[in-house]
Each structure stands twice: as C-alpha cells, then as structure tokens.
C-alpha cells in the first residue's frame, strides 16, 4: 500500500546471473526483479533449478567463476552492490546483510568453538572490547533459546544437535544487527517440531530487531506461514509475485496453481493429487516463448512465440502469463 511511497531497503532489478560451462551457458537467474521494504519478509519460492539460491548468493556477491552477474542492479538503500568492490562487500556481509544456510554443519567451522565464531562477527563489525563482545555473544545465544550460554560458547559445533546448530547460525547472523537476512532453506534439514521452534524464533527475532528477511525455500507451507509477500521463480524468471495470502489463495499463474495443488492437503479428500505433468526443462536450452508452456494446460500458440512479461494482475499480484487464472479457476 505504502510501498511505493517509501524507498525499499533492497531493490533487485533485472538481475542476470549466468554460469559459463563447457556444456553451454546456464542462465540460472535471467532477469529477476523484486524489492523488500524494511521489516518485511519476502518468500522466494520455486523447485530445484528455479534459481532461488543463486539470487541469494548474487545479493551477497558470492558468485564464483564460472558464474558471473551479467547484468542488472542490486540496490541496497540506493547503493548498487553489483558495482561494489570486494572490500565494500566484505563490510556489507555480516553487518548489513547476513545469511543463514540450509545445512548448519557445513556453514559452521568444525575446528573453532562456537564462541570464537560468534566473536569473529563482532570483531569485524563492531568496535566493542573483548569483554563487551563476550557478553553480547552470551546474550544473543540466550535469546535464541540456548541455555547455559556462557558454558556453551566454549563448545564446538559437533557437540550441538541439528536444531541447536541452526540456532547458533541464526545467532551469528543476527549478532551484528543486520538490516537484511537471507535465509536459504533454513529449516529444510530439520524435523517438523524443531522446524516450528526455529521458524517462530526467526519471526520473533526479526520483529524485535526490525530486520527484513528473504526466505528462500521450496516449501510453500513454510513460506505461507512466514512471508508477507511471495515471489515465485521458474527457470530463472519471476513467474508471479504478490501478497502472500492472495497468492496462495488465488494465484494468477498456472505454475503457482500447480505447485499449490501438488501439496497433499489433509482437508480435501481428492483421491488423486493434481500433478504438473513433465519436468523442469534443461535451462541450457529453454524453449522459445514461455518456459512453462510444455507443462502448462492453458498453453496456446501465442505461448510458443512470445515470452510473457511480468505484468500487473488483480489485487497485489503480478504474473508472467498470457492467459492468467481468475480466482477459483483451476489450471
């Protein structure tokens, strides 16, 4: 509503991240645009190969060869991160933007104690003395629900369970009070009861600290419980975006509809699940026109010729489709 009036915290515009491999150029992210307001949670959803993780890595400048950001802008408060040098990016990582990865075992260093890894963030991004840093770490560890924090700071990652490790990772991500957190499948490796603990923790921490979050996930159920807005990616393009409830309840794009219908739903008694036929195409040679047309029940001749552009639909939704769905219509 008031989004247009205020400058967004992060504005990603026409981002293109390509990987130049021997097998051809993989256009993993091919013209993705979205923005995030302060204090907002944006869900980035899609299946494997949709490009959602690459978007997250691109924002932090973590794309290594053979990958390259080929075009577009990533504006953080008006500053273009695509043009920023490595030194500037190092300042931003951890302080302005921090990241929570899927697997807490590989994102923590097994050779350093948790306390040392937490302290590193503050050493780099604050001018607190050792004593103040220590108490900040203890306080943060307690706030993510780890008891006996002073003692646990001396423990190593392998001494924590999966859920506890993810709490540590979240504590590290929040330490320097970043304005944006990119969480890449933060609960995918966890059990449901632990998942609900972690999601609740993240929600509360973000609200308390006034940070924004990009939640990258394949799980529409998680996103619908967490996000204010949702962006759906397919083959490196945004196919639909809009307010979370509107998008989940009455999506305009047939792909979004298909994703939602594929989730087994305890409250409806369809004996068969509605399935999206076929599989995600090889992004090295995408079909001409709409990327989704081979799997789309609404595809017509036009879809094979002209690639649909993201355009405003009803309500808060935008979708890239020549024949968008009306509310209640199935794909």
């Amino acid at each position, binding site marked *: 509503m008031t989004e247009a009036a205020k400058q967004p915290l992060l504005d990603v515009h026409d981002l293109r991240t390509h990987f130049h491999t021997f097998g051809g150029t993989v256009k993993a992210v091919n013209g993705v645009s979205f923005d995030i307001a302060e204090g907002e949670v944006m869900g980035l959803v899609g*299946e*494997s190969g949709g490009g959602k993780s690459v978007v997250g890595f691109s924002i932090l400048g973590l794309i290594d060869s053979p990958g390259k950001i080929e075009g577009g802008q990533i504006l953080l408060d008006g500053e273009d991160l695509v043009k920023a040098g490595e030194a500037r990016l190092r300042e931003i990582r951890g302080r302005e933007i921090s990241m929570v990865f899927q697997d807490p075992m590989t994102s923590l260093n097994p050779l350093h104690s948790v306390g040392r890894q937490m302290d590193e963030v503050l050493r780099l991004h604050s001018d607190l003395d050792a004593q103040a840093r220590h108490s900040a770490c203890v306080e943060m560890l307690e706030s993510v629900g780890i008891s006996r924090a002073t003692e646990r700071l001396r423990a190593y990652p392998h001494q924590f*369970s999966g*859920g*506890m490790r993810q709490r540590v990772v979240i504590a590290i991500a929040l330490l320097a009070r970043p304005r944006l957190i990119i969480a890449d499948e933060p609960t995918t490796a966890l*059990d*449901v*009861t*632990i*998942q*609900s*603990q972690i*999601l609740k923790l993240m929600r509360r921490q973000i609200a308390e600290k006034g940070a924004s979050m990009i939640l990258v996930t*394949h*799980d*529409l*159920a*998680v996103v*619908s*419980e967490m996000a204010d807005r949702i962006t759906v990616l397919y083959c490196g393009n945004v196919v639909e975006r809009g307010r979370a*409830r509107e998008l*989940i*309840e009455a999506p305009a794009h047939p792909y979004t509809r*298909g*994703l*939602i*219908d*594929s*989730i*087994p*739903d*305890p*409250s409806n008694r369809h*004996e*068969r*699940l*509605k*399935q*999206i*036929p076929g*599989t*995600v195409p090889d992004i090295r040679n995408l079909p001409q026109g709409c990327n989704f047309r081979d799997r789309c029940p609404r595809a017509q001749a036009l879809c094979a010729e002209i690639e649909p552009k993201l355009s405003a639909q009803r309500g808060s939704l935008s979708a890239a489709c020549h024949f968008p769905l009306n509310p209640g219509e199935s794909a």
Partner: protein
Amino acid sequence: MTDVTAPMLDVRNLEMHFPLGGGLFDRLRIGRKGPRLDRSVVRAVNGVSFSIKRGEIMALVGESGCGKSTVAKTIARIYKPTGGELLIDGEDVANHDFAQMLPVRAKMQMIFQDPYASLNPRQKVRDIVAEPLLQQAKGAEARREVPARIEKLLARVGLNAEHAGRYPHQFSGGQRQRIGIARALSVTPGLIVADEPVSALDVSIQAQILNLMKDLRDEFGLAYLFISHDLSVVHHVADKIGVMYLGFMVETAPRDVLFARPRHPYTRALLSAAPSIKAKRDKQEIELTGEVPSALSLPSGCCFRTRCPFAWDRCAVERPALRDMGEGQAVACHLIDEPERDVA
C-alpha cells in the same frame, strides 16, 4: 495358496538393537574394578507390533531417530532383528538366512529414499529392472520372457522403451524413482516397503510419484509399508498410520481417526507443528521444547516424558503399553487413565 484373509505383513514385538561400533580401544573403559569393555547398545526399535492386509497402505511417521527407517530395513531383512517375529505372508522370516530369504523376496520388495544412491550408476536401466527377476527366474524359459516383461514394466511406470538402454545419470530424480518402482514391481510382490520414497523430490514430481504408487496399489492389490516424516503426504496415501517415538509405537489408528482425534501428546504435537498453506487455524495446541533423547540411554518409564508437557511422576516409573481405544485406535499413554491431567 495361503489364506487370503491373513495379513500380508505381521510384525510382532519387533526389536532391533545395534551394538555400539568402534574397536576394542574405543570401547575400553577403566573403572574402579579395572578395565572393562563398554557394551552399550543403540535401542533403535523396542518391541513394535502391527500388521498390514493385502491392498492396505500403512504409514509409519515420526522424527529422525525414531526408528521408522530401521523398522523398514528390518522388515526388508537388510538387518536381522534381535527379537520378535516377522511374518511375511504367514511365514516367519525373522531368522531366515540369505538363501532362505530369496523366495521371500519375490513377495516383498523395497523402494528407497534416495533415487541417486539406490541405482547402480554402471548398469543400464534394463539391467537394473531385470536384476530381481533374474534372481527369481528359474530356467531358460522364464529368462526368455524377461525382456518383454521389462518393457511392460517401464511403460507402466511412465517410461519409454528407449529409456531401457540408458544409464541412471541420464534421468531426473522423479524418473529415477520410477525406475526404482519398476524394479520393485518386477517380481510382482505383494508387499512393498517404501522408505521415504518422495522426500528427495520436488513437490510437483512428488505428486506424480504418489499418484503412481496409489494407482499401482489399486491395480495389483499391493500392500505398502510407507515410511515418511511428512504428515501431509502420509494423510494422502495411508489407510492407517503408526506414530513412532524413540523406537516405540506411541499411537496407531486409521488415518481419519488419527487426524480427527489424535490422543497421544506426541501425535498432537506433530500435527500442530506441521506447517500448512491454509490460513491460520488455531494451532500449536501442544508445543514441544527440547529434542529427542539419545537411543543409547532411553528415559525410564515413558519414552516421551522428557518432552511431554503433561508428564507426572507415574510417567517416570511405569512404561505405558499400547491400549486399544476402539475404532482401531491404540495409544500408549497414562493420560488415558487420568484424563483430568490433560489441560494445556
């Protein structure tokens, strides 16, 4: 040949304990009475009983470490159970050796979680699917029929004849899972043990595989033991559900009874923790804190008491047994005796 009303799978008091690994020196402990060997065991499955009829789908749910996969692997006789009976089509196979198991394997096959690790990368699809058939086929006559049968099987699971000559790496995850299903079907088994068959797949592909599995059940009258951590998947496929925690069955019930009226606090917590795309319901009925204790040293009394919000002194002393509640529901919880304690 056997009684058709007899269950396809009947598990009675199944127990699977693993001795802790490691060499002599890893296990050597110096105590007050001198050195001794540590003989700890991981109590993965502690007396689980259930049965599955022909054409029935039973699901086992629970969090990691609850023993559901161990149950599946023990039934498939990848492990030899340390206790209990395991009746497949009326025959107790708990103590069968490898050779004795061979004819049983024509009645029971397994589908694995990871479609990347469960297919031999050096074999063509045709050979992968033929493997169980060739093990069972006696004589040249039967072997001659194998190629035609493979073609039929591949077509049935939605692959083309030309796919038969390819290698697993040329397929996507969903297609590989179809190959795994074709392999399991090749010997026309009566029971399929499926260990998290769709967990590694994207949601749109997951729907395809679940639909295929249900169609095959209807077509061949298959019984499935379906292991999953995903409650919405389980609700979709299962006729009845067993909920496991730390190697114990804490509740079992027909699907609709379980989802409408879960009785065990752990089942209720699981159901309320599952995220949903539906608008906020009044959920989080029971919220669990903490994590699953180690299977090396089980809690005394009720296995769930360390995380149960209702636990009282009786739970630490006495292990609750599964008790029949009617309508096919059975629950192992002391709250049944003292329902007045059930106030969140």
